């Protein structure tokens, strides 16, 4: 394992700027998740590190060596693709052994067998080692693809939305599994996703990408509770953060220049209106089982927030709403302290 240092890297495809002036340092053994919508430059970043793309500007150091001009084979990275990129005519065993059989390694066959069997157990595919890779379910294929990366001990594991094509239950299982394996191996890992739950649960640090620019990087906690701007705030939290114009509700203590107030569930206290004064009306209570989504109309704005499953509020109730230390954003979208 090694650290990876990206300095001021830019990459365009024709007119399209994919990554612009990216600086990112991934420490040895760190799990960094890049989070962003489609087209934010996440995959391009991975491909740049793997050497599948060459940067237009900037440098990439892997394990202290300048790897900017090296070919993918010379870089010692392992890549898990979003698609099931298995070698279709090979068995699961041969797929897992494929990287180890590279002539560059000259690994004896019995050692390969041991390594493959260990990894197969790790990704829970050992009972299907002799199956053809095309005879597997989607989840199994992706476990093999992850396993094929894990058999190696590369400088860094690069994972491009490896769980996005799986069903929800399997995604949850593999999420935990991957995090466990990463911790076990002490692996350096850069993981790309657009799923905030994956990012929040697995990452040591989350990097938020938007339009090829790294907007903010920090621990999941920091990204969640101290977002740098409106974009970052809107990426995390379920239900999504409520962005309300300043002055809609009483906001004593808002710093000067506040244009927008961001309020998640924990930033709002909602009570049934007493003594005739009300801020809003309950629109609808959405029952999800373990919790409820509460939809409230305030003036022309709608709020969505979480509430207890046994909430006394019902449709049509008039409510008072107060902020509890919400997030303040200025006219430029940056958060005000």
């Amino acid at each position, binding site marked *: 394992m090694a650290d990876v240092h990206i300095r001021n890297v830019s990459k365009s495809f024709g007119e399209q700027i994919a990554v612009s002036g990216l600086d990112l340092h991934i420490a040895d053994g760190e799990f960094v998740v890049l989070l962003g919508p489609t087209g934010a430059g996440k995959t391009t970043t991975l491909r740049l590190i*793997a*050497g*599948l793309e060459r940067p237009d500007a900037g440098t990439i150091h892997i394990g202290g060596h300048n790897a900017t001009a090296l*070919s*993918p*084979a010379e870089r010692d*990275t*392992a*890549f898990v*693709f979003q*698609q099931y*990129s298995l*070698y*279709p*005519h*090979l068995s699961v065993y041969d797929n897992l052994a*494929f*990287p180890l059989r*590279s*002539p*560059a*390694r000259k690994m004896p066959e019995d050692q390969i067998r041991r390594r493959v069997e260990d990894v197969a157990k790790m990704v829970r595919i050992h009972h299907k080692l002799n199956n*053809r890779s*095309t005879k597997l379910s989607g989840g199994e294929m992706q476990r093999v693809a992850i396993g*094929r990366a894990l058999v*190696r001990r590369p400088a860094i594991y690069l994972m491009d939305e490896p769980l996005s094509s799986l069903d929800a239950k399997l995604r949850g299982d593999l999420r935990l599994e991957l995090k466990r394996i990463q911790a076990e191996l002490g692996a350096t890992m850069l993981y790309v996703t657009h799923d905030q739950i994956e990012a929040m649960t697995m990452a040591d640090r989350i990097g938020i990408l938007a339009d090829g620019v790294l907007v903010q990087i920090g621990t999941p906690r920091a990204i969640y509770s101290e977002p740098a701007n409106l974009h970052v705030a809107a990426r995390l939290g379920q239900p999504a953060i409520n962005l309300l114009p300043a002055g809609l509700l009483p906001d004593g203590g808002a710093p000067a220049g506040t244009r927008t107030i961001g309020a998640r569930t924990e930033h709002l206290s909602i009570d049934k209106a007493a003594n005739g004064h009300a801020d809003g009306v309950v629109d609808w209570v959405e029952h999800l089982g373990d919790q409820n989504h509460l939809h409230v109309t305030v003036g022309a704005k709608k709020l969505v927030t979480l509430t207890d499953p046994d909430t006394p509020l019902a449709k049509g109730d008039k409510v008072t709403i107060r902020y509890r230390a919400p997030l303040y954003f200025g006219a430029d979208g940056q958060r005000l302290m």
Partner: protein
Amino acid sequence: MLNRTADSVARATPEPLARKVRGISDKGLAWLFISPTILLLLAINIFPLFWAIYLSFTNYRANRPNEVVKNLGLANYRRILGDQDIWIAMQTTAHFVFWTILLQTLIGFTLAWLIDRKFRGHAFWTTIILVPMMLSPAVVGNFWRFLYEPQIGLFAYAISFVSGIPPTDIQMLSNVSLAPWSIIIVDTWMWTPYVMLICLAGLRSIPEYIYEAAEVDRASNWRQFWSITLPMALPFIMLAVLFRGIENFKMFDMVNLLTGGGPGSTTEVASITLKRQAFESWRTGYSSAFAIILFVAVFGLANIYVKALNKVKQR
């Protein structure tokens, strides 16, 4: 509401047509539509096949329609299987099929692989390569006859330029050992593009990310070729071999135009023998039996082959 919609649709259909169509079931209508094709198939494919099977058991001669037709049982078949000339013709055919397929597959796949590199102008070169395939066999046969001319032909001239052998010694069509190769060369020239096209489709179907995965896994180009390119393109290559194999087993036009089976009977492939027996010796019953044997042989071989192909595809 629903009823009203159905009613208005019914009313929109012109009354006489609606009444006529109502009497025919869906299945009847389907038969009505495919009946012209079925009749045509029966008339030009199925009937002649059964007629030929019937004739193959007789001594019928098409040039003597008034002679009494005798039933010979399996005598025609027995005589064919013991006929030395027939076996020589089959060997000639096998030789021809083997070499054309080998050359066309090797050259066709190599061309497809090169075109798939997507170098500058690859679309232009694809079109150029495809030209021979689009020509009529009659045209191809005739102009290769000119090319092969020892006195004026470009082919002999080019070979003599490279090898130093005088062009008049390069008698492609009349030399006993060169004549089979003259046909193999023309067939390869004409049909390699077809094999290339099928192989190209196979190569284009391999997703780019598999190569990228292999590259990150440190597989050399050589290893990528053997463990990704070739196995994934194999079903397509096999398909091309099947098509070319069936076509060349019954090869007639090019041989007939270039050598007519000669010199002697060195290029006399099965279909030429068949034509000679049927339309020069007028042994209609005998040649029908031979045709049936050829048909069964091609059909059987193709079936075995398709089974193998399916096995490869399922992997």
